[in-house]
């Protein structure tokens, strides 16, 4: 059986070789955090990391992956949802419907790895994901906050301590 290196472990699948990586992740490995939005690499909902680079998995045949390539999905970005990008997303209450946000977060995490202090132009170039709810300004603010390590002052949001709940 073909193998994939996903989120730190080796996983087997029996998908046809021309199956896009997205559908192997979702239907063979049960990793449904990565979303189907367009199937033609337009919307970015399916963004994952392959060897640290943000890739749209909906148009990438699984057979095109090399055996040693390391795939990280939203489920593997951090063990407990505490990657700086995820924390900034929560701080800014970025998601609305949330369907595009796995892809947004993966794209943002790859951007910050590449450019720890991204300019607005860097953000525009890297964050080409589509969000129909319209979270773009909070996405931008959260990326800047994650880069600077602090929350931007733009949105005042009261967070309850749910640790005991």
């Amino acid at each position: 059986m073909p193998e994939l290196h996903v989120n730190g472990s080796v996983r087997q699948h029996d998908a046809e070789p021309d199956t896009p990586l997205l559908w192997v992740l979702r239907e063979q490995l049960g990793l449904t955090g990565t979303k189907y939005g367009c199937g033609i690499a337009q919307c970015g909902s399916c963004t994952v990391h392959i060897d640290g680079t943000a890739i749209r998995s909906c148009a990438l045949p699984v057979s095109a992956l090399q055996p040693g390539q390391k795939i990280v999905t939203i489920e593997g970005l951090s063990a407990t949802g505490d990657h700086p990008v995820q924390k900034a997303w929560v701080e800014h209450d970025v998601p609305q419907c949330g369907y595009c946000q796995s892809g947004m977060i993966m794209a943002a995490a790859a951007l910050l790895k590449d450019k720890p202090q991204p300019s607005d132009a860097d953000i525009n170039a890297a964050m080409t994901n589509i969000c129909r709810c319209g979270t773009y300004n909070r996405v931008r603010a959260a990326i800047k906050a994650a880069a600077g390590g602090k929350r931007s002052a733009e949105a005042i949001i009261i967070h309850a301590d749910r640790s005991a709940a």
Partner: protein
Amino acid sequence: MTTIGLVSRREFIASAAAGSLTVGFHIPALAQQAGTTPEINAWVVVQPDDRVIVRIARSEMGQGTLTGLAQLVAEELECDWAKVSTEYPTPAQNLARNRVWGNFSTGGSRGIRDSHDYVRKGGAAARLMLVQAAADEWKVPAAECRVDKGVITHAASGRRTSYGKVAAAAARIKPPTDIVLKDPKDWKLAGKPLARLDTVDKTTGRQIYGADLRLPGMLNAAIRACPVFGGKLKSFDAAAIAARRGVKKVVPVGDSAVAVVAETWWQAKTALDALPIDWDFGPNLRVQDADVTAMLKAGLDAEQAAVGNSNGDARAALASAARRIDAVYAYPHQNHATMEPMNATAKWTAERCEVWTPTQNGEAALAATAEAAGLKPSQCEVYKIHLGGGFGRRGAVHDWVTQAVQIARQLPGTPVKLLWSREEDMTHGRYHPVMQCRLSAGLDAQNKLTALHMRLSGQSILAGVFPQNVRDGKDPVTFQGLNAGGAEAAFGYSVTNLLIDHAMRNPHVPPGFWRGVNLNQNTIFVECFLDEVAHATKQDPLELRRSLMQGHPKNRAVLDAVAERVGWGKPAPDVGGQKVYRGLAQTHGFGSYVAACAEVSVDAAGDLRIHRIVAATDCGHAVNPQQIAAQVEGSFVYGLSAMLYGACTVKDGRIAQTNFDTYPVMRINEMPKVETIVIPSGGFWGGVGEPTIAVAAPAVLNAIFAATGLRIRELPLSRHSLKRA
């Protein structure tokens, strides 16, 4: 998080036991399930450990209603917000309990404004019962007890307890009938910019959408409906794909579609692509976009038209006016393009049918399920799954649910998940109605507006969706934002001689409620045309509006708020060496008053940049200001995507656009800075999910005119060049 429903939980747990198929699923913790403790009432369940489950009847699709409604319940309940979670009751439970949760419909920006009263009463009643239970136990008058964050105290005796400890006793107390709600000025949770309850799972991939659902033994279906609206399925050659790996069955769906059912969706989709299908394309095969345009154009001059608003004698006043200004505007069909394509999972037997689906109206989904299943509603159930966008597509019409049940009926006992491809979604929508409008203004010798005639010609949503609500050829929803009065969507100007009428012209493309609905095009027509009148008569666009707004103080207040914030009347600072120009718009819709001022520049090559938008909203009562800001920002993305690019055109009877490459939408690089002013004036409850969309396009179009002298009357903007000669 929101749990999914009793039976689905059982399925989930069974599914978890089945093994690896459910990797990545979030299985609700047992303690969160309703039923471990009796409910206090329909809205509130309190667990022994003081955790509170608030039941939410409306659907969460990103607009934040889950959090807002929970805030309203918790406000009256006086519980600890940090211990609040939510769950959806199911449509069949609502039916069985005499609709105790009221209306499930989540559209028209009504989630909060139509249910604030009874959900707050639900929270207040539960508080009274919990306090009464403690008082009974202590044998003291309830009036002597105090409650704060779910802790009940009796000062005189020094006793204290918590909601969780008295919940079981409270559930047995007769519900109070005399309930006094708090004055909003005393709110502690409502009105505050609280973080959403559903954010964390959306950052980790744990949030389950309909498309993510997996049930034990489930198969996957891909569907293709006749690409031409009104066409039928003639035949298909199932044998041609029968040997493909994973393919289980090829089935007709209704009389106009065919589906392939396979082990995985990718197998189903690729097999469907290879399936030979013969269509009867029906009567619309030769219809082109120019035919639709011509049909509407004829309506501009038609004698027959339904009158939506009139006073004085607009025709006579126009005939005798010193000056007359005319313009024709056009608004195209548009697809909702939710990020998550339509999907539903159905399991059918001769006795029962269950459906799991993202829906804006669980009750309508249940009705569609029962009809397609050939069963009574009481034999069916719908489990609402979190929506990956709704925007009106998942509300009134449940065509995808009907299809899913039709497929599942052909595989009794097997759950089948139907997922539309993006292409299917783009070409089988329920489209924003297509509309043209001729506006005619009459002016006296002093350039005062004395007459206005708006002739709408185009598509009726009701005629396509709820034809029984069309009376004498009139669709009242067409006049959204143009009505003579009322709290919902009134025309915001006083014109001595006014006539607004509609010649209904319905092309074969199915219409639907599209976020913002008819307020979108109506506000463009009114606000851009008034801008035209202002420029043609050398009046300031703000002052012209104000001169017509004496009887409309709330409209004027939001308009003044944005004008003041931008410093209207003084030039905007240049950006990057480009001069910046402004445009205004205001409207009343979904019960709220909204206004916007856009700041744009257009360079010599015609490249448009939208730098900043200042927006004001008066929604009466503001339940969560930071989520209102999020809705306002999102409304600009939705409205400006439509203005910049949104057009579904007809080619050979079908929709020509098939995916985001041919139906582009706004991305982050085009997103302006948005400053949201929330000015809740109190005394009414307005919606916030939609109204701002309507002011997005006209504010920017008016700014484009200020920058270029080009008046864009036919949308989208991508059809035009802004390059100056």
